[in-house]
């Protein structure tokens, strides 16, 4: 198990109004780890993920990333986010920009690269996700799978030290899921540190160093995939996995 010298999430709690959606969530990651958050919808896994780059605000607890306290009011959230890439369930590509424009915007405006350098970096990243031939395509001209790969390239172009994936394949037609998972597999092989929310259990089983099972905002159980999938300790975990399996 990780000792959490890269990311350590400790007792994170969050409320929406009176409703508590995260209850003292804790887990740790080392550099190069892949951690997968699983759980039924509404279990708080996406919210937990968003707390890491402060797209959602946790009200209690601690998230230490590479030595810095993410939840500190003194931290510059823009600096934090340039180092933490995010891939969205709904892609959220910039609709008015081409694939290259989407990927180049961060390097150009956040990192201050020249137009030409940003464009070159965009081309490199799009090649990395297998879209070298779609530089000038607009999001609406791309398939869902291609759009999500642009989304991944956009995050990678910032050279992040941590990548967050928020159900990256949930909005995709079944036949398009494979191409996105393939890109994610490639990142795992390169040693990228990844925190992933997904319902793709076979992907989780293959690549995760640790699975965290969340239900109703609580960490019910966590452990390496072979343990959690084969010999879950908690009854709730077993029930969830059975329900998921019957859909596969």
């Amino acid at each position, binding site marked *: 198990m990780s000792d959490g010298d890269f990311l350590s999430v400790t007792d994170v709690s969050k409320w929406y109004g009176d409703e508590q959606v995260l209850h003292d969530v804790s887990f740790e990651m080392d550099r190069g780890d892949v951690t997968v958050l699983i759980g039924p919808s509404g279990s708080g896994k996406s919210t937990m993920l968003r707390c890491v780059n402060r797209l959602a605000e946790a009200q209690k607890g601690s998230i230490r990333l590479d030595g810095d306290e993410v939840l500190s009011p003194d931290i510059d959230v823009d600096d934090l986010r340039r180092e933490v890439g*995010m891939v969205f369930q709904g892609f959220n590509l*910039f609709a008015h920009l081409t694939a290259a424009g989407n990927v180049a915007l961060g390097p150009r405006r956040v990192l201050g690269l020249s137009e030409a350098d940003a464009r070159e970096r965009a081309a490199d990243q799009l090649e990395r996700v297998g879209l070298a031939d779609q530089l000038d395509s607009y999001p*609406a*001209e791309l398939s869902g799978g291609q759009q999500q790969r642009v989304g991944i390239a*956009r995050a990678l172009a910032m050279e992040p030290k941590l990548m967050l994936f928020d159900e990256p394949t949930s909005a995709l037609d079944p036949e398009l899921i494979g191409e996105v998972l393939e890109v994610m597999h490639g990142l795992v092989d390169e040693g990228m540190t990844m925190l992933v929310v997904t319902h793709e259990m076979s992907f989780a089983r293959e690549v995760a160093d640790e699975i965290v099972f969340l239900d109703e905002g609580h960490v019910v159980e966590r452990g390496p995939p072979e343990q959690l999938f084969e010999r879950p300790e908690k009854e709730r975990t077993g029930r969830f996995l059975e329900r998921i399996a019957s859909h596969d």
Partner: protein
Amino acid sequence: MSAGGTLALAAVESLGATALGWPFVGEAADWEFVLRNADYLGAGALLTIGLTIGSILLGFLVGFPAGAVEVYGDGYLERAVNAAGIVLRGTPIVVILIVMYFVVGVPQINLGVASISSAVTAGILGLGLRSAAYQSQIFRAALSSVDAGQLEAGRSIGLSRFEAVRYVVVPQALRRSIPGFQNEFTIVLKDTSIVFAIGLAELLTRGYDLFSEQTTAVLEVILFISAIYFVLTFTTNRALDYLGGRYAIPEGESA
């Protein structure tokens, strides 16, 4: 014949039987009268164009930020902008113009080569501020219509809130503003005639002056100035259509 038909026929007859004869409409003498005064009407058209451009520009420069403040601002600024918009939209334009000219008393502006009279300055300020109040609503609606995920994605790569709005939301909102902006342009163009209230004679007022002088030429004068209005609105709307098409976001079949 129906009552409506009889009424229409009576209306046509009241324009004068000769008005519908050859050459198409009107008497040759009345058309000559209009053409003799074409310079007079042309000067009015120039004032109409000047007032429209000045007002639309001022309306854009003030209205766009105002719309953004209404969407993204908070506190006193947002409330002040909101209140100013409600007052401007709720006040008749004649009242706004009279307040600008007689109460505020804006000065004449000297530009070296030319000077803008205080009445024209008041006209542009009045029409421009009112247009700003309407344009702010066009932009507000357009900004709000851009999916929240766009802003969030912008923030996720490290853009500040301002940068994400500037580089991600605004370019999309401007494109969506074009149809509303076309309406607003047409409305301002035609509303410039209300500057007669502060003594300015633009196209419509000059037309009124002319047919008051030669009362048989009402139809000819009205047709002539309508044609000018039509050319102005048509060309501008087509230009904005072109702009909309030029910057349209391509949509594929696969989406």
